[in-house]
């Protein structure tokens, strides 16, 4: 197989909170994405998935944040690159689509201005050419009457339309990598499906690498080839999508699956994961998921489990994993 386009290796991001306490938002995350591949990062709020995304594009605030590890995009080290260099990477080689299309577009500029801004910035073309390209992009993301739409302000478009515009802006200069941070969370279900279909099309047509960050396993199931499950800043399980859904082994992954309704109704009652993640203890006193884990034992406490490759494929960070092939919905 080809060389991976994006290689994130042992990424650490630590936030200093007021009072000197440090929170490890991302704690040794590694994954790789190839061109044309879609990799999912799934986890609940506070698991560090968005921070990982922001770190890749160097969008974390500079004050109070320390990062270490390595982020290679096509061999270029992005972690610690100068702001000047990062400005050329962002949009040109890697772009991001954000969660809330309602607030992610500038309310005082027409969408045409916001599109052409990125186009002229990266492709160095004249205004007219940029407008043509902008209309072309809107057409590509499925917005009817693109020429007229260019003159619209963001508030004149619906949420789904705005997210399409966001995607068009991200696509403006054909980046090799797109990071989508919960791109469908703020949208209606029907629109969600359309936006996912659009992203899938982009990946297929342009051979773009896509990192899909979400808490929604349905999104993962629909679009990703492989999945990384994050908990408290670490990847706890990763696998090919089919294997992960067929045979989830980490109890957190299983908990996530059990809390999602199934269309075939095979599940009965939805089972929530009790408790909520804690940023205080994290991994220093054993497995961070132990306080919420149904299969917790003494072996889980004291020392944090390592991420190991399992013989059945994928990697797993658990000392008491569920057996291979055990379905989720017949009780955990």
């Amino acid at each position, binding site marked *: 197989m080809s060389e991976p386009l994006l290689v994130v290796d042992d990424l650490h991001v630590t936030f200093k909170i007021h009072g000197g306490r440090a929170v490890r938002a991302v704690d040794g995350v590694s994954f790789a994405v190839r061109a044309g591949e879609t990799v999912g990062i799934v986890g609940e709020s506070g698991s560090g998935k968005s921070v990982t995304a922001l770190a890749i594009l160097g969008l974390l605030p500079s004050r109070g944040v320390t990062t270490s590890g390595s982020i290679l995009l096509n061999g270029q080290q992005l972690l610690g690159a100068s702001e000047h260099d990062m400005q050329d990477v*962002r949009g*040109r080689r890697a772009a*991001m689509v954000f969660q809330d299309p309602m*607030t992610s577009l*500038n309310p*005082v500029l027409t969408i045409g201005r916001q599109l052409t801004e990125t186009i002229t910035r990266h492709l160095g073309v004249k205004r007219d050419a940029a407008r043509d390209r902008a209309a072309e992009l809107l057409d590509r993301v499925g917005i009817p009457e693109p020429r007229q739409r260019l003159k619209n*302000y*963001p508030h004149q478009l619906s949420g789904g339309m705005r997210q399409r515009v966001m995607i068009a802006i991200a696509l403006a200069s054909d980046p090799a990598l797109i990071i989508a941070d919960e791109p469908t969370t703020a949208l209606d279900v029907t629109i969600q499906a359309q936006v996912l279909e659009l992203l899938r099309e982009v990946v297929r047509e342009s051979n773009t690498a896509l990192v899909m960050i979400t808490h929604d396993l349905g999104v993962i199931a629909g679009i990703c080839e492989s999945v990384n499950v994050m908990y408290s800043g670490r990847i706890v399980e990763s696998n090919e999508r089919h294997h992960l859904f067929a045979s989830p082994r980490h109890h957190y992954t299983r908990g996530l699956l059990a809390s999602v309704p199934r269309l075939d109704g095979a599940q009965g009652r939805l089972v929530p994961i009790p408790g909520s993640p804690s940023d205080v203890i994290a991994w220093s006193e054993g497995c961070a998921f132990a306080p919420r884990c149904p299969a917790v034992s003494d072996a889980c406490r004291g020392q944090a489990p390592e991420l190991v490759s399992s013989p059945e494929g994928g990697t797993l960070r658990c000392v008491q994993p569920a057996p291979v092939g055990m379905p989720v919905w017949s009780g955990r």
Partner: protein
Amino acid sequence: MSVLTRRQRADQLDDPDVANSLTREAWRRIRQNPLAIVGGTIIVFFVLIAVFAPMLAPFNPRSNAWFDQIRPTSIPGPSRDHWFGLDEGGRDELSRLIFGARASLMIGVLSLGIGAVAGAFFGLVAGAFGGWVDSLIMRLTDILLAVPSLLLALSVAAVIGQSQTAIVVAVAVPNIPLFARMLRSSMLGERQKDYVTSATSVGVRRRSLVMRHVVPNSLAPMLVQASLALSTAIIDAAALSFLGLGSADPGVPEWGRMLANTTRLLNVAPHLAIFPGVAILITALGFNLFGEAVREALDPKLRR
């Protein structure tokens, strides 16, 4: 029909960012606000008076042709010849009021304009660069804010002498820190918004990020502050000229000084206090009403 649909559309916009976004929407809301119409009418009225003063004034405001009618115990009040009566120097009060509108409005607008532009500049620099530049500018504004504006005004007058320029500078300078802080803080607020992160994420350069994204979204509070501060500036200008800071030539009509000259004569000629006082009041009221309407139009929390 089209008006109705436009209004309906406007009602559906409950996203606060949207309210700031379109100047057109704001204008529409200002035009529909009765306060704005009253305030605007007053402003236009006084501006027209100031502009066309030579045509409107019945007499030369400096002419003391009627000085022989002035007695220490009686100054003629309103009459058919002199609608607003005569002043203590035997000049036509109405003509002086009309010409006085020029000085009052000009000083008010000019001083506020200078204060707002200079303040916006410092606020922009502080908000755009942050770090030590920000700290330095903010400490300087703290110092300016700590100096009582009256003391500042008197020192300005002491340095550059008694003149209308002194009033302009004295009213402008205390406005600088207010506007600087306001623009800086709204820029800091805007910088946290999602659209800034998303513009950054597609490689928009810092300069255009600040000038095209952050600043236009931060201007609404400035506009509101400016339109409300205009009335204060006019009152302050009148107050300083009341205290004797205005033009060194006593023949130049200024509302504040006209008021000051008559304090000793209140029981002899109350009309000399009433007319300039009411003129100042109505002008300030006009600017205040209009400013309030601008605020309502731009502030999503106050929209009805």
